């Protein structure tokens, strides 16, 4: 694959004694939107956590922009351009909306991908209105917007988004879909975990099917229509 920006080679991961990732291999090209799909417990979120160095134990090789980051400390991964939006959103209750937004340090000032605060407020007007509200007093949709917005400020160009549409009203989900399209058009590389296949289907360039902690199939956007039955079987729909 040309222009690979993120690759995992034979990555294994554990939660305590439980072996949960079993030799994950994947590649993501610059500017690509990739969706990890699969049933609950298949290991999709764990793959994102492994990339971010958040697993207690993992091995294998993780490369970002050609550099081996397997042994790099978790706090240094953000410097390589990773931005992480966790499944539980990770909004801090003791911080206001604006403090949450400004919390992640700007790690890459020269990346050209940094979204300014004014652009963020243009993209998510609600966040400007609720700037002084405690982070966890925001609605679910606003919290999700905040979780995405705060990593855009840092200069990250590889976004790992975990279940961003989960539990949100359809109108908010549409807004998020619009944001993903805009980010893609700006050149961001996006890896997203999505249970809501209808949300991910029109957005992703490729779909990596995850089962039992490994990538078992790859579906291109162009193949989507004629492989839908197969995908539904993978998802247990």
């Amino acid at each position: 694959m040309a222009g690979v920006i993120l690759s995992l080679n034979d990555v294994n991961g554990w939660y305590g004694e439980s072996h949960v990732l079993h030799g994950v291999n994947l590649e993501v090209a610059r500017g690509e939107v990739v969706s990890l799909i699969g049933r609950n417990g298949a290991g999709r979120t764990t793959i994102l956590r492994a990339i971010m160095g958040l697993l207690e134990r993992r091995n294998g090789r993780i490369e970002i922009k050609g550099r081996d980051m397997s042994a790099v400390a978790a706090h240094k991964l953000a410097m390589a351009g990773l931005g992480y939006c966790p499944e539980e959103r990770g909004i801090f209750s003791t911080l206001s909306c604006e403090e949450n937004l400004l919390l992640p340090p700007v790690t890459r000032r020269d990346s050209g991908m940094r979204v300014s605060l004014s652009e963020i407020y243009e993209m998510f007007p609600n966040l400007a209105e609720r700037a002084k509200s405690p982070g966890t007093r925001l609605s679910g949709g606003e919290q999700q917007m905040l979780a995405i917005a705060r990593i855009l400020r840092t200069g990250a160009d590889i976004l790992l988004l975990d279940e961003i549409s989960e539990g949100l009203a359809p109108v908010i989900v549409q807004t998020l879909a619009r944001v993903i399209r805009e980010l893609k058009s700006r050149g961001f590389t996006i890896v997203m975990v999505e249970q809501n296949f209808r949300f991910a289907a029109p957005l992703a360039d490729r779909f990596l099917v995850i089962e039992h902690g490994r990538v078992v199939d790859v579906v291109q956007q162009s193949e989507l229509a004629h492989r839908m039955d197969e995908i539904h079987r993978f998802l247990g729909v």
Partner: protein
Amino acid sequence: MTEIFGVPAQVLYGQLLLGLVNGSFYALLSLGLSVIFGLLNIVNFAHGTMYMLGAFLAYALLMPLGLGYWWAFILVPLVAGGIGIIIERTILHRIYGLDNIYGLLVTFGLTMVIEGLVRVYFGVSGLRYPVPASLSGMLDLGFMRLPVYRVWVIVAALGLCLVTWLVIERTRLGATLRAGTENPKLVQAFGVNVPLLVTLVFGWGVGLAALAGVLAAPLMQLTPQIGHSIIITVFGVVVIGGMGSILGSILSGLTLGVLEGVAKVYYPEASSTVIFVVMILVLLVRPHGLFGKQ
């Protein structure tokens, strides 16, 4: 002579002042203890020992080296903070993620070791640290006379608490600290060097405890046990204020110090237990403390 509920006003005011002085020490110590618990999740039993160490370091600077109170006020927190950083890097970082009991046991062991070293070097008989000349004398308010040094202790302690509160509640660094207390792994994923932050916070907490020791040195007989007697009360203060709550530590420290002072006037037998009675009541009504979060 004016009496308030059967007690001469002068006596009551005197005890209120003493209560405020003690409350200032409780606030300073519980503040450090609370922040360390919030970020490291370690119940630092050695915190009282660092207070004791601060007082003895001030004494050591004065006696062999001839460096007086103001030198101690600057140097002791730095030296003690450095010792704290070494302890965190070499010992405490090995027990993160384990049950709280390990932290309690390790810091209890540290208390024994540090106290033993102080006992070997300084002996067990009480030592006197003089009140600095610039802070000696009395302040006449008309209705009562206050020792200048005690007023200084209250002002300095409140100033330190205020600065700490402002840094934690009103700055970007403080926001990072608060976030680190809630979810350190996510903060790390954002590119913040959380292990370094933890080390510095521990060093700062130890420095603050040692500074409280410097402030207290001219007010007491210095013995290696002074940390023991205060740490149990400070644990009570932290529990009442709410583990991890900065404002709770400061307010409950001051309030409970005053309450203890008032108890000494009206019912002296209860003065040493009043804080723990309040603690039991608070735990029954609000198990997470007055200002703590569930």
